[in-house]
């Protein structure tokens, strides 16, 4: 296999990480909604934590994207 095809395959594999981050973001918002509907009074005070969890889950997916871009354009 030449380098060009290996690069494209590697970038495609790195894109799997974005899907994993999608699962993570879904879990964050899903669990927040679940608990918010059980205790709506406490939901507003936890929104900051919701976005911290979202930011952490999203960052890992964005790193996968950055890896794909590095493989495609920087190597």
């Amino acid at each position, binding site marked *: 296999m030449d380098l*060009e095809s290996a690069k*494209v395959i590697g970038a495609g594999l790195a894109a799997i990480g974005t899907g994993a981050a999608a699962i993570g973001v879904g879990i964050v918002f899903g669990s927040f909604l679940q608990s918010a509907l059980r205790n709506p009074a406490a939901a507003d*005070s936890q929104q*900051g934590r919701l*976005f*911290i969890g*979202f*930011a952490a889950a*999203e*960052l890992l997916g*964005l*790193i996968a*994207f*950055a890896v794909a*871009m590095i493989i*495609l*354009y920087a190597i």
Partner: protein
Amino acid sequence: MVAASKIDPMHQFLIEPLGPRLQLGGFDISFTTSSLWMVLTLVILWVFMLGGMKRELVPGRWQVAVEGFTGFIRNMVDANIGPEGRKFTPYIFSLFMFILVANFLGLMPIGIVPGLHPFTATSHFSITGVLAIMSFSIVLIVGFWRHGLKFFSLFVPHGTPMVMVPLIAAIEFISFMVRPFSLGLRLFVAMIAGHILMEVFGSFIVSGFNGGPMGWGIGLISFLFIVGVAALELLVCAIQAYVFALLTSLYLNDAINLH
């Protein structure tokens, strides 16, 4: 690249000098597209704030809009840092508004006018990295100013068993030092990813409608998709600005109150 030579989604992030190239001590300091859009951001912010700072007793629409933003940031700082954080509200507010306006400016459909292209200043690590380093140095300065060497107790949470202290301290130290990097990386990669997605599907529309009746369907689907993606991108712009301001205030909270 094989595929990139046709679509080339990275071209939109190219920084070009407007006017003469200026050199200073080996650095290129010419006025670039990036500088132009940051100046535009500042001008828009300035006009927006000036129009709303009339301090009328019965606020008009404009003043309500400005007070909505300031109140939003003040509430966030109060909830995360407490009364001590009031003096950092201006910094966090400027950070939030600059990132928000710069993100939105990059999404404006200015490309309709031939020859003009929107540019997202926040899609470059040199911009977001500097913003992140600014936040990080404020955290360091405030932390050492208020607590002196006691600031290092940040790396050892309360109630850690003595055996675990070296391990926990190492982990906390790494997670502390990674903060400016992850702060800047999140914003710039989120912007780049969205713009690449829109560029790729935008070119699908063009090449789809050029490709005969079979392509028209693909072009139409791409068009509907890109409308949804554009709406999502507007949401991402706001969320990324919010997350940047929120994390900055959380890090400041660590420096002010320790934990």
